[in-house]
């Protein structure tokens, strides 16, 4: 702490003292003793340095080019001249504001820096990493049985999808064959999870647009699905139920009735949502034409999921590159036209109805049998067998202490999560733990569309647009 006490005889600071009067210091009134104290330990504000949005004159032209998506609209072979980018240099009129990371409407800890000209958004830079958990590093320390507990917490709104893609990747390397009941049960749980995730999206999207009733409705429906999950998997969220080899336990008795009740209730309620939101003029005005994305932009920015489908491209991996048993159920792929917020809302609402359709077919077609592979090197034996058979005891012990070994290799498997393409790139070195586990997070990639979506729009629409991109920060930061 340094103190600088001036008495009332000084006319002004001597020319050499820089510390006393910095650029932000107030002018000293005449004849007044002044003390300035420095407190170096106090953190004044958080600063992420080069990760933040900086003023135009300090930004390289090639980065400024990101805002106009210049690379996306050029024909093949054309060359971008970076000095063409900086055409709107009127610095006295632009303002850089900061939203978050603690903000009620940014879907978790997303920090958004916006450069505004009046109310119009020019540049956007999402600053992420506030939820970085080092899950990919942790995965290298956990065995394959434990891995699902780690992965499930990435996209915490659709945890079963994370577990599913992880299990599919491990099984691809293990080359195990799953019994059909395991496959169909996984499909059941995935579609229920898609239902709960989209209901949650409807709730938070409604809340972001100001409709508190939609929040309550969405959570009310979601509680029904979570109650079923609790009955089946033991937990409401982060289930660790879909494991390599099948699922952890069989579906409970009476699950068909439970799922039918869920389907019927949610289906009638979607018509209530239509009354509340879809036809309502205020809602339509707020979401139509806002945050438009074209198909070329979406493909260039690697967007997937409802974001891509809203631009008109009918890419849904359940239909185009089917996994599990999606080629044996009948459902429609919902595609939008204009790529705006309304299209994404309509796609998600319709996907709720399509998921219900799939669930009804799964209820009819669920095959009986084993719920996990009988390869005892991969899945633990039933607990009753441990008392009878020495081999079962040894398998149980090995699986839960050291874990099973996966042959050397690498694989990339992707599924269609409610947010987009959720992929898992798994490298194994032949040991009981993954050598490298990389999850291709849909929200992480979809966030790159935010600068393009927000450019030219109003700052008041920023929250609605972020909400329609539906980022889940656990997925983004991992």
């Amino acid at each position: 702490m340094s103190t600088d006490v001036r008495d009332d005889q000084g006319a002004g600071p001597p020319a050499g003292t820089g510390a006393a009067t910095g650029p932000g210091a107030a002018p000293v009134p005449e004849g007044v003793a002044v003390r300035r104290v420095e407190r170096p330990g106090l953190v004044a504000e958080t600063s992420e340095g080069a990760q933040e949005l900086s003023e135009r004159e300090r930004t390289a032209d090639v980065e400024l080019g990101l805002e106009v998506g210049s690379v996306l609209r050029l024909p093949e072979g054309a060359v971008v001249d970076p000095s063409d980018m900086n055409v709107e240099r009127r610095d006295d009129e632009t303002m850089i504001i900061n939203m978050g990371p603690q903000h009620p409407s940014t879907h978790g800890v997303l920090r958004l820096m916006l450069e505004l000209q009046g109310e119009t958004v020019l540049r956007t830079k999402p600053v992420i990493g506030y939820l970085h958990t080092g899950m990919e590093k942790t995965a290298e320390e956990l065995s394959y049985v434990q891995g699902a507990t780690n992965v499930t917490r990435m996209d915490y709104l659709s945890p079963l999808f994370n577990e599913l893609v992880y299990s599919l990747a491990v099984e691809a390397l293990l080359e195990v064959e799953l019994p059909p009941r395991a496959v169909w049960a996984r499909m059941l749980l995935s579609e229920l999870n898609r239902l709960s995730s989209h209901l949650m999206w409807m709730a938070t999207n409604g809340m972001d647009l100001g409709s508190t009733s939609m929040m309550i409705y969405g959570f009310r429906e979601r509680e029904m699905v979570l109650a079923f999950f609790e009955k089946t998997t033991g937990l409401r969220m982060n289930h660790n139920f879909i494991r390599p080899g099948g699922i952890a336990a069989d579906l409970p008795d009476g699950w068909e009735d439970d799922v039918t009740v869920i389907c019927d209730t949610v289906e009638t309620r979607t018509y209530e949502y239509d009354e509340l939101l879809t036809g309502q003029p205020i809602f339509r005005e707020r979401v139509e034409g806002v945050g438009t994305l074209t198909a070329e932009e979406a493909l260039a920015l690697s967007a997937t999921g409802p974001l891509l489908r809203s631009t008109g491209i009918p890419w849904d991996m359940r239909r185009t590159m089917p996994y599990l048993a999606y080629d044996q159920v009948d459902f429609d792929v919902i595609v939008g036209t204009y790529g705006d917020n309304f299209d994404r809302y309509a796609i998600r609402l319709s996907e709720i109805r399509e998921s219900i359709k799939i669930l009804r077919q799964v209820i009819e077609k669920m095959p009986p049998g084993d719920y996990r592979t009988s390869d005892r090197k991969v899945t633990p034996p039933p607990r009753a067998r441990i008392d009878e058979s020495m081999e079962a005891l040894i398998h149980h012990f090995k699986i839960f202490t050291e874990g099973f070994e996966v042959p050397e290799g690498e694989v990339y498997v992707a599924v269609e999560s409610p947010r987009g393409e959720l992929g898992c790139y798994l490298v194994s070195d032949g040991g009981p733990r993954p050598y490298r586990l990389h999850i291709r997070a849909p929200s992480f990639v979809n966030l790159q569309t935010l600068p393009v979506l927000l450019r030219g729009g109003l700052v008041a629409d920023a929250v609605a647009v972020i909400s329609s991109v539906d980022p889940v920060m656990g997925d983004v930061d991992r």
Partner: protein
Amino acid sequence: MGLEDLQHNFLTGQLEELVKWARRNSVWPATFGLACCAIEMMSVGAADFDISRLGMEVFRASPRQADLMIVAGRVSQKMAPVLRQVYDQMMEPKWVISMGVCASTGGMFNNYAIVQGVDQIVPVDVYAPGCPPSPETLLHAILTLHEKIATGAITRRPPAEPLPPGRDDRWTPEVPDAVRVSTPR
């Protein structure tokens, strides 16, 4: 000048009870949902596990208007200064519930990226275990906090204890008391 300056006597006893009643029945949480626990916190705010009956459904976005910070989720190294900043902006009296195991101790993520317990950054009043804690657990934590507010003293703060050797003055000066309260079933 405030309640703390009044001498504790028969008359101010009733006033204290009134103040404590008012404080615990309208604890307004600040939104600090970080990860999966935030979803369970939102469930508690929604219709099935209504915290509106406890007077808490208004999640204030501005920390200046909030009494309670429910740290819901894992706190990463990048988020830690932000957490402290938001906590500092809250006005006294303020409480902190550490929701979930990640906020309480670092949880299953014992690695470079997660702060091993939010009590390294802010003083915590109630810890709610679970991954994520079910809404019932969070309600229990909130009711425990209410008991703590009801039984705590506000006009006679205990004198500051001398710091143990090795701890310097710039460490957070508030020491949370350990309260063991049995809530009737």
